[in-house]
């Protein structure tokens, strides 16, 4: 973008100007969300015929085929509801959503990642969905532990879970065999994991390459801090706690992998995954989405639950949720129809496993047919009872970015784990304060 961004300063100012102008046009519909629950009961919609607009970021993998099929099926079986599928990049959705909703041109229903929910809710973009949840008959126990509450903000429910995507341990079995390790005995705890790493090292293989990037060094660090009994933030998310003793232990475990010769010193982003696929390393902590990676069929691989390095079982997971938009002048019938659509989608989400995500609906996910069709997902399903989801707090992604900086600096040996985490926590605390002053809550 060297040349083309030659006028970035002006362009940025320009974008700002247009953005602000659009907000102005949108009027002052923000702030407190009204609680339009619509007339919906048990997932059936009996109002007048409506067309509802559905924004989603499902543009890759199996989704572009799967989603239109599902929607066609829904439209064919619901005479008075027509769902309009609007797929676009996730980044575009978060960029367009606020202005569109405030101008009354947003979707009626959409899907969002767990860490965006509170930010959306604080901006008044979402309808409170307590009423919808009740009429659809959902409770927290219909979903994996903790994921329903990831949609809870400031005393209200704003979302219904759709999918979860935990981290797991990917294993290159051929590499294990090279080190004369039993490919069927995948390590599950600290002792067995270290034993495997040592055996691999003796065979000249660096067993787990750690990186200092969001994908997946940050996810590994977060899994480990929970395993050591710590947490990223305090209860009301007013203070960062990832620099606690548990945090330092977690990050030190990762830097020790480098120090003890189990990982190269300077792994680039995705370098560890590429190394696993290329047979240069044995283990990689990565998300369930990688089960659909095109390179895997050529590899003799297995997935397992992440080993327990700390004092308790824990693993990082992301989640996606259904949200109902608080458009300026939102039609209650459309919201009610959207609720019926959401219920139907969750009920019919078994096929969603093909995209490398786990359906959140317990009934669907626990049906034996799911594992029969997708046996690779077993270790990820096993992890759900102890999975941790994204922190619920508006503007949290800015604070989360400081964690990645700390992991990066520590892994590259720029700072000690403690120093890196302390510096990041100081920064995160400033950001949390800024978030509180701007979003309240």
């Amino acid at each position, binding site marked *: 973008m*060297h040349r083309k961004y030659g006028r970035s300063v002006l362009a940025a100012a320009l974008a700002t100007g247009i953005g602000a102008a659009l*907000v102005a046009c949108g009027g002052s519909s923000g702030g407190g969300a009204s609680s339009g629950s619509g007339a919906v009961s048990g997932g059936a919609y009996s109002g007048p015929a409506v067309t509802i607009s559905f924004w989603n970021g499902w543009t890759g993998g199996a989704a572009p085929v799967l989603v239109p099929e599902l929607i066609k099926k829904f439209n064919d079986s619901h005479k008075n509801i027509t769902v309009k599928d609007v797929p676009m990049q996730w980044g575009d959705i978060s960029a367009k959503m606020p202005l569109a909703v405030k101008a009354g041109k947003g979707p009626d229903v959409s899907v969002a990642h767990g860490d965006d929910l509170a930010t959306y809710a604080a901006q008044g973009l979402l309808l409170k969905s307590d009423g919808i949840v009740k009429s659809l008959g959902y409770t927290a126990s219909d979903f994996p532990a903790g994921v329903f509450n990831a949609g809870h903000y400031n005393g209200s429910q704003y979302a219904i879970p759709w999918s979860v995507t935990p981290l797991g341990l990917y294993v290159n079995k051929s590499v294990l065999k090279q080190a004369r390790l039993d490919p069927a005995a995948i390590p599950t705890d600290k002792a067995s994991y270290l034993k495997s790493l040592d055996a691999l090292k003796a065979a000249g293989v660096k067993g787990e390459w750690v990186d200092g990037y969001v994908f997946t060094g940050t996810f590994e660090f977060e899994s480990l801090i929970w395993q050591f009994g710590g947490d990223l933030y305090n209860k009301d998310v007013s203070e960062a706690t990832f620099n606690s003793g548990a945090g330092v232990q977690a990050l030190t475990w990762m830097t020790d992998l480098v120090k003890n010769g189990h990982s190269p010193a300077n*792994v680039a982003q995705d*370098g560890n995954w590429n190394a696993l696929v290329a047979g*240069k390393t044995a283990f990689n902590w990565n998300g369930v989405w990688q089960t659909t990676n095109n390179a895997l069929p050529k590899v003799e691989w297995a997935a397992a639950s992440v080993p327990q390095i700390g004092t308790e079982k824990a693993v990082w997971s992301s989640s996606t949720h259904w949200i109902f938009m608080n458009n300026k002048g939102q039609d209650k019938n459309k919201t009610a129809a959207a609720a019926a659509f959401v219920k139907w989608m969750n009920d019919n989400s078994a096929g969603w496993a093909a995209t490398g995500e786990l359906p959140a609906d317990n009934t669907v996910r626990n049906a034996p047919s799911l594992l029969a069709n997708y046996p690779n997902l077993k270790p990820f399903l096993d992890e759900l009872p102890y999975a941790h989801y994204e922190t619920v707090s508006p503007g949290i992604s800015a604070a989360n970015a400081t964690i990645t900086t700390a992991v990066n600096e520590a892994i590259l040996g720029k700072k000690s784990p403690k120093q890196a985490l302390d510096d990041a926590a100081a920064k995160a605390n400033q*950001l949390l304060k800024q978030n509180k002053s701007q979003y309240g809550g």
Partner: protein
Amino acid sequence: MVANSALAPLVPRGTRPGGRGVHRKNATAYLFLAPFLILFCVFVLAPAVYGLWISLHIWNPLLPNQPFVGLENYTQLFTPGSLTSGDFWESMRATGIFTVASVPFLLVIPLLIAVLLNQKIRGGTVFRAIFFAPYVLGVAVIGVIWRYLLDPQLGVVNHLLGLFGLTSDVPWTVDVPWVWISLVAVTIWWTLGFNTVILLAGLQGINKELYDAASVDGAGAMRKFFSVTLPGLRPVLSFVTTVTILASANMFGQSYLITHGGPGHATRTAIMYIADEGLSQNQMGAASAMSYVLFALLAVVSLVNFRLQRDKSE
């Protein structure tokens, strides 16, 4: 002495209109310029002024209220320990390092190539196309390609170094100072064609007779380069220098894609940080203030640059 008259068409001063009848001509000129002027006002001037206004507020476009805070966003930038100052100046430092490291190469190498291409050599057009070719690629393409080639463990570059018995674990995309070498080298490879073509056009505008005259006076190739070529290129070089400095100071894509701003935030440029602050974190007020500080610095650099080059040509 001869140079002055021959170079007249190239020197801005020589192209300035003078004498009577100018006013009527000016009116026509303004008429033709008017459409652009309107576009400029609507899409550049007005947003720029609006940006100045935004920079005086805590401006989160997603929230209903944008409280006025006066110059706070600016004073924050100059207050050590504030939320933005550390990150901002670190990003300015990254921008500075990249600019200082890349601009000399982006001027000297294209100049040498342009001089070579300006000889009547066989296949000159082909070479010109070859040098220009990378420039037509988008930053996303070159970013992804080089990220793979420069991967510390799995990349082709380190593999080749290893074949020659050299160290094969250079962290090209991961650690300083290697990241700077990678970013500068990739940028040179990518954009030198642009400067080359402009300088080549400048070379072809230099009157051939000057070289003949210099030869008659007994000047060698070096003397001709420094006494005829360089002075003849001065206006073009001045333009190329300014544009190159601005472009380097606005570097974004290479860092974003190849090094992710790392290690830590060492290669996160000012534009990267401003974009993150304004568009990801929705702190438009602070981001606008940063843009204006960057703008002010670039304006000073450009003015100094123009002044230096003009003084020499007079």
